[in-house]
């Protein structure tokens, strides 16, 4: 085990965690404030990635594409909230799950019809395609560093928005006690729409940034949505701080697990067992983490409702 490996894996975990945070932040606000389970959140991530990829390819500039893609996704998100989701707020969780799951299936089909079944390949800006030398003998992909930077910047902006603005105050009030916030004069209906737009924007940033690293494809939202739910359950529903900490925890545990567990198995039981059981056990780790957190703090680490 050497320092470079640990350093590199920590950066990988940080990068993964920050992207999870962008998804979990929107999800936790919608869940926390409106008590609404939105399974279509991952669809916004997918739509965002597709729109960013399309605009980037059309304009030839990654940054312009990212900006336009985020705006367009916000539009889609607001439209979705205004036409369909709004009608689900007062229904029970089961109806919400059914309704948003239907949206998820339809989004997948619509994307398949518009863009085709094959994944889109998006390349990072040429200047960022290579590695950056961080210290002697250790270079790290420039693009992953950029993702970390963007993730941190967005987290900071969100924190300022939630703790330092009137909008943020209303959001926090809504998350803590919706009835009381309404009674005190917050326009909760408008707040919902704004929160939803914010969530959609964060999804699009995550989708657009991860696009060049991974592949933009139909169904990409589902696997990451499960992790985003794990994050908000660990962090405490409705809490931005909880989402950030939960996301970083999940990111680090997942990345570390994929390195360390097979290594440990290899030492203890030989490479054959390590090759078979290692990846399986590593993928269980985050659920073990979730179970452990829920055992000691059933409300999550930083619950918004008390």
């Amino acid at each position: 085990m050497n320092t470079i490996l640990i350093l590199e894996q920590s950066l990988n975990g940080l990068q993964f965690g920050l992207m999870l945070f962008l998804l979990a932040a929107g999800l936790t606000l919608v869940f926390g404030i409106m008590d609404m389970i939105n399974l279509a959140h991952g669809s916004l991530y997918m739509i965002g990635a597709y729109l960013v990829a399309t605009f980037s390819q059309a304009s030839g500039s990654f940054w312009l594409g990212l900006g336009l893609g985020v705006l367009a996704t916000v539009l889609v998100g607001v439209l979705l909230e205004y036409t369909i989701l709004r009608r689900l707020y007062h229904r029970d969780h089961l109806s919400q799950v059914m309704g948003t799951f239907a949206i998820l299936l339809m989004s997948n089909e619509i994307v398949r019809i518009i863009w085709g079944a094959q994944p889109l390949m998006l390349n990072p800006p040429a200047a960022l395609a290579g590695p950056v030398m961080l210290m002697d003998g250790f270079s790290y992909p420039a693009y992953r560093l950029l993702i970390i930077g963007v993730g941190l910047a967005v987290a900071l902006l969100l924190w300022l928005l939630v703790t330092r603005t009137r909008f943020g105050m209303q959001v926090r009030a809504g998350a803590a006690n919706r009835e009381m916030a309404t009674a005190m004069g917050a326009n909760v209906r408008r707040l919902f729409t704004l929160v939803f737009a914010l969530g959609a924007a964060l999804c699009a940033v995550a989708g657009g940034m991860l696009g060049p690293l991974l592949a933009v494809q139909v169904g990409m939202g589902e696997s990451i949505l499960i992790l985003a739910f794990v994050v908000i359950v660990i962090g405490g529903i409705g809490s931005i701080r909880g989402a950030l900490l939960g996301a970083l925890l999940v990111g680090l545990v997942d990345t570390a697990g994929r390195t360390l567990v097979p290594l440990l198995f290899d030492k203890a039981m030989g490479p054959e067992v390590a090759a078979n059981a290692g990846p399986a056990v590593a993928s269980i780790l985050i659920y073990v983490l979730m179970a452990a957190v829920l055992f000691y703090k059933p409300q999550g680490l930083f619950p918004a409702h008390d």
Partner: protein
Amino acid sequence: MKRHLLHRSLVSLSIALLCASSASAADQVKVGLLSTLSGPGAGLGTDIRDGFQLAVKHMNGKIGNLPAEVVVVDDQQNPEVAKQTAERLLKRDKVDFMTGTVFSNVMLAVGPAAFQNKTFFISPNAGPSQYAGAQCNPYFFNVSQQNDALHEAAGQTMQDKGFKRVALIAPNYPAGKDSIAGFKRFYKGEVGMETYTSLSQLDYGAEISKMRAAQVDGVYIFLPGGLGVNFIKQFVGAGLSKDVTLYAPGFSADEDVIRAVGDSMLGTFNTSQWAHDLDNAANKKFVADFQKEFGRNPSLYASQGYDAARLMDAAVRDVKGKLDDKAALRKAIEAAKFESVRGSFKFNSNHFPVQDYYLRVVSKDAQGKLTNRTVGTVFKNHQDAYVKDCKMPS
């Protein structure tokens, strides 16, 4: 009254005769092409489909002089979905041949239904070790290569070139296990790292940093389709390509991957039983027409789809359209009297090919376009390692 009876029996006799003759020769050939057309593996299935349909077009819409109907269905790279769809193709559509399968886990899931139904399955890609060895079946034919073969050729090449310590990466599924086993059958140096990843994994950050720590001088990846695209991009992005030489099986460095990755692919060595610059008439026509028809270079998968259709064509022609005579049809497929785009082609006793394997390298062609160039032959008339376990029922 008597005359009437005679008339009636004459009519029924002639009808019976007509029926008997039409039962022996089919009036069309129906092919169920069950392939992966969505998700990370979609590029592979699309190329197989396009190659297959180009061949049918070359044969004027016919297979063995009979009008061909190709039913194309997406298996979504999901064995469960594939199983249900295969049942439908076999039972409702009553296809005469099954083909199209890309992934071995899908192949192992759909195979039994076809075999039970006595429908010939011509695999244009998946060649799991099970079907090459103990579970070999009279109704299964593989027209590409046994799963291990390209990896065996890569192992031999890395052994010949004197690599000391290599890293190996493959997805955790039957063909992934086969690939590493095949590589190690011929590579005798040290393995510094051996990792199996999930088939849906797209981020290789963790594996790449482990590879850096393992201090290897070469890496061999078996990552089909989009997985390989992501790995290579991330591998070059991490700056590892300067110290570690990348080797891949032909399908991880073929046209689809080159298109998606771009210049980072330059200098990647890979092994294949086919290359677009192989010098034979069938291949020249295939490559030129594929480019004209689809506006892109054909890949290994496309060549395999093309050969699958040509093999069916030859066999159906041989039995003069009598598709119900399974024993004769089987003999005809075994004989494989078609001109393969890879040059000489013949089946082993386990219905897998005995053929040559080549080393290719990604380089720029005369027009400055990135593509594969054949640099030499690794194996001559190579057969798979499982044929000895196959007791093919006669």
